[in-house]
């Protein structure tokens, strides 16, 4: 819990619990594990702490489900009470058929294999398949649900988190000034883009994919170049 965020590797001891004050409540987020009297990192990445939560943020291609994450899933199959959803993770997610806005027993969403959904991970644990929902915690839709049409591509989990983070990702800011498009980002490394013209969709997708290792200034230049070329 010392100072600014630092890079940790799997196996690094983050701190020993015995040395800390006894009465503090500390929540361990993803990438950390408690081994008897010490907290150890089990993922490579940057160690962050905010309020009383400690977690490791790394960038991978594979997504490990964690509660409260917003993800983009692809429907694989339908079971009696839930959809099986691929999350680009080691296990398939389970999305109950009634966990959609306006869904009732008589009005079940008709999602076929290959349908794209934007959902929220309700419960994730190493022993179970992650439970998903297309409703927020209070029961409303608030943007979750099937994503119709548009274009879906994959990126690293780190880039996905940057796209969703604050301050606004420079590429998105620059694109938003000149173009009109819809975008949904899943922390499981998937991005969905939709706009009226295919050329716009292609431009937006290219800009996002190529911006991962660029600084803010470089990202603005990238966008300018792409917009110029499109004219």
């Amino acid at each position, binding site marked *: 819990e010392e100072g600014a965020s630092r890079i940790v590797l*799997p*196996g690094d001891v983050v701190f020993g619990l015995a040395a800390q004050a006894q009465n503090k409540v500390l929540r361990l987020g993803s990438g950390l*594990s*408690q*081994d*008897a*009297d010490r907290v*150890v990192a*089990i993922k490579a990445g940057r160690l962050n702490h905010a309020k009383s939560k400690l977690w490791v943020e790394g960038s991978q291609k594979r997504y490990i489900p964690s509660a409260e994450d917003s993800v983009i899933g692809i429907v694989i199959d339908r079971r009696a009470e*839930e959809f099986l959803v691929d999350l680009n993770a080691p296990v398939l997610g*389970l999305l109950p058929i009634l966990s959609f806005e306006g869904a009732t027993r008589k009005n079940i969403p008709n999602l076929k294999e290959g349908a794209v959904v934007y959902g929220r991970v309700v*419960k994730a*644990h190493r*022993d*179970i*398949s992650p*439970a998903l929902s297309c409703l927020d915690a209070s029961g409303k839709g608030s943007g979750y649900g099937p994503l119709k049409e548009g274009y879906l591509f994959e990126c690293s989990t780190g880039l996905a988190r940057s796209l969703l983070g604050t301050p606004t990702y420079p590429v998105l800011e620059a694109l938003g000034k000149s173009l009109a498009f819809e975008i949904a980002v899943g922390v499981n490394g998937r991005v969905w883009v939709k706009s009226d013209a295919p050329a716009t969709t292609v431009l937006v997708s290219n800009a996002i994919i190529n911006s991962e290792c660029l600084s803010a200034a470089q990202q603005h230049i990238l966008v300018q170049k792409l917009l110029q070329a499109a004219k």
Partner: protein
Amino acid sequence: MAKREDDLRTPGELLGLASEFNAGRGSYCHDGKIYASLVGIRHLIEAKQGSDDLRPTIEIRREKERDAVPEAGSTVTAKITKVQARMASADIVCVGPRAVKEKFTGIVRQQDVRLTEIDKVDMHSSFRPGDIIRAEVISLGDSRAYYLSTAKNELGVVSAVSVAGMPKFFLVSTKSATMVAVSWQEMQCPLTNQREPRKVAKVVT
């Protein structure tokens, strides 16, 4: 004691008269006579002191002890192998006090975990893979698994290891983290003092 070969009976063999004997396990009464229904050794059990019926009971018992097999109503010890949204799978290890020779699979369904609020049962808060449970066999189930129930106070998780004590592939934790029951819903890890939810069995000592 008579030689064992002499006492070996086969099904249909006449054992005695119903007026002189009681038909016990492995034998039956027909037309006033007692016949054997199993292959085995004949045993005579004296009548209980003070009972009205003074006739001894004839029993036919198999020569060898049969392997333990779960039957409806028997209490079994099982190890949870998989936890899913609406059921948990377990390997039956013991039937009563006897260990089984070959593995049997059992399933605990969501509605059979406990007696109250069965539609609100969260399987993951009741069992975790690796837990040892005491359960009762409800039925022989289907060809894949027996149906088990933990819907009694004395049934449920008997022994469980906490997350802290789970072997991780690169960390070797030599301390034992077998959890201690705190209530019928929670167990506590001795290493980290963290509580984990389980459907705990009330072990009567």
